[in-house]
Structure formats: C-alpha cells, structure tokens
C-alpha cells in the first residue's frame, strides 16, 4: 500500500532522483569540519522558527517592545525557552558561520571552480551579521539602544556619504520609533529573504561541484 503511494508520488515528483542528487552525494573522506555548513543551515532554520514564534507576542513599538519582551520572558508558557533559543542561537550562528568560513579558507576550497560559492558565502556572512545587528535593537532596552546608537555612528563615519548612511539606517537623524520599525522589518523580512536566496544559490553550487577534497601533503 505505502509502496504504491510512494511509487505514484515518485513518478510525478522524481523523489528518487532528488534523493540521489541531494542526499546520496559522494563526499570526500569524512571530516567534522565539513559539517559546519549544515550546522549553519540548521541554525538558520531554528532561528526562523523561533523568530516566527517570537513575533506572536513581540511588538516593535518604543512603547511596548520592552514590555512585550518582558511578557515573553515572564508571562507566556515556555516564552523564556523560545527567546533563549533565539538569543543564544543568534550568537552561535555567527560563530558557526565564521568558523565554516575559516575552514573553507584554510582548506583553500575557494579556488576554481568554487569562487562563486565563496563570494556568496561572504554575502551570507555579512547578512548574518546584519541579522545580529538589527535583532539586537529589538528588545529596546538601554543596552540595545546605546549599542545601536554607537553602531549607526560607526557606519556614519564613512567619508562624504557617512551622514546619509546614518540617516538611512536610523530613518532620520535620531534613533526613534522609525529606527525600531525599520530594523524590525529588516530583521524579519528583508535580511531573512536575502539569506534564504543566497543559501539557495550556495547549496546549488555545492551540489553542482561536489565538495572539495582536502589538500594533500603535496599541495
């Protein structure tokens, strides 16, 4: 019975082909450093799921952001768990992505034909940092308020166009309700969409080229 269902689906969806191409790929000799990319992907999904759950209660308004987070932590069943995972997952994700990048560098896996995979990886790293930067403001407490004040000032120190960049980031010259709202929008829509798109291309390239072998002694 299940076999028939499976065969029916396979005929139309090509499940077997998908399986062969996506999961049953040849790998270079096993090495734990090669699992970091998958770990980063897992963390992205985890952040996405816990982040969506946080939006059930979080409110991106200066009047309520802090109180709504307080409510998540103390008022909602398992709110502390969901926020805790999102909070620590964010740090872990930056660390994992960074080490993944280091490993690719150390094993020289960015060489032909994988230059584009590397370039897209740099984009992934930057957008991940952007997620951390925009997410940090959302609790709207003293720490996050001043961190963003300083962070946007640093971006504003670019010669000539610095002042303009600062105003674009803050939505005006001051840190305000506009800043919180645009950081929220970037954090839950724009940057995740960019990440998802970049991850898609990144993975396509990895499947297309296969994984690189570790350099041998002679290299």
């Amino acid at each position: 019975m299940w076999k028939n269902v499976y065969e029916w689906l396979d005929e139309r969806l090509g499940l077997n082909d998908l399986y062969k191409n996506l999961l049953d790929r040849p790998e270079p000799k096993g090495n734990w450093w090669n699992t970091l990319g998958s770990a980063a992907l897992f963390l992205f999904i985890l952040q996405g799921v816990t982040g969506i759950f946080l939006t059930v209660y979080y409110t991106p308004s200066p009047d309520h952001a802090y109180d709504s987070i307080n409510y998540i932590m103390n008022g909602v069943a398992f709110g502390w768990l969901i926020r805790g995972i999102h909070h620590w997952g964010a740090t872990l994700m930056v660390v994992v992505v960074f080490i993944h990048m280091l490993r690719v560098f150390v094993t020289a896996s960015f060489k032909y034909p994988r230059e584009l995979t590397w370039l897209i990886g740099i984009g992934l790293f930057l957008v991940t940092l952007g997620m951390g930067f925009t997410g940090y403001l959302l609790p709207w407490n003293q720490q996050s308020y001043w961190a963003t004040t300083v962070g946007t000032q640093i971006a504003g120190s670019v010669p000539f166009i610095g002042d303009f960049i600062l105003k674009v980031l803050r939505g005006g010259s001051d840190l305000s309700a506009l800043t919180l709202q645009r950081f929220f929008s970037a954090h839950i829509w724009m940057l995740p969409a960019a990440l998802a798109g970049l991850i898609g291309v990144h993975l396509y390239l990895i499947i297309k080229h296969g994984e690189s072998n570790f350099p041998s002694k002679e290299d």
Partner: protein
Amino acid sequence: MSDEGHTGRNEISRRDFIKVTTGIVGGVIGLAVGVPAIAYLLDPAFKSGAKEAWIPIGKFADMQIGQPYAFSFTRVQVNGWERTSTSHGGFVIRKSDNPTDTVIFNSRCTHLGCTVNWKADAQAFICPCHDGKFGINGKVLGGPPPRPLDQFTDFRVTQDGVLEIYYKES
C-alpha cells in the same frame, strides 16, 4: 549474517530494533519540541484575568445613617503587556442600624454614563451632563435618565468592620 535468520520467537531483528528505537527517540524529541511550542501559542487562552473581586469601600462605622457616603475605586485589567484601568464609584446609604438595611448605588448615570454627585441642598443626585436628577432612593426625579441608578447588590461587612462590595465586570 542475514537478519532474518536470527528472528526466533522472542528475539527481534536488528532492523526492527533500530526502527523501534528511532521511533521512540523521535517521539520523545517530537514531544519535547511540540509541547512547549503548542503551550506557548495557546497560553493566553488559559489566562482568566480575574474579572470579579471583593472590593473594600471603607469603615462601615464611618458611614452615617441617612447620609450618602461617596466612594470610588479603580480596576486594572492586564492583557499581556497592556494595562487598562477603569474608575468606578458610588454611594453607600445606610437606612438604619441594621447593616443589611443598606443600599449602594453606582454613581454612573443611567443616561450616558457621566458621574452623578450628591447635592445635599437639593437632596438629590445630580448629573452634570444633561441635568439628570435622582432621589436618595435612586429613582429618577427629572432629566433624560431612563431608569433608576444601578446598585451594587452584593456586599458584606468584614470582621474588622470594613464594608466590601462584590464587583463583577459586565
């Protein structure tokens, strides 16, 4: 080395063992993730947010017979991070020494809800909004109000002599 060869009466094959343990471990993980997730989403539905309570009004001994005694209190409603407070008020009128022989009016005018005041010289509750007028028994004496003043009918005097009314959100 065939798995099937080992499946005696009471033995399970390695394949089945792995299937069963995977199922159990998967189930446990599923519960560990699913229960918090569902509890998190449903949580506000389980919170009643106390909508009724006994409210202390004042020392019963301070309330003089035949003299309306004004009181007021606020109720705070908490929904998540949002707090709304509403003010309420009224008048206690003792008719005799008997504590049960007491009427407690709500000072909310029955016309459009302004707060009525006791005017001793007129011996009436006067509404500032459209000149509604109620007698000391709560009956309408004039103006637009359609019915007598509402009453808090549930009240008690505690052991330490405090008058309390039972307030229920409508």
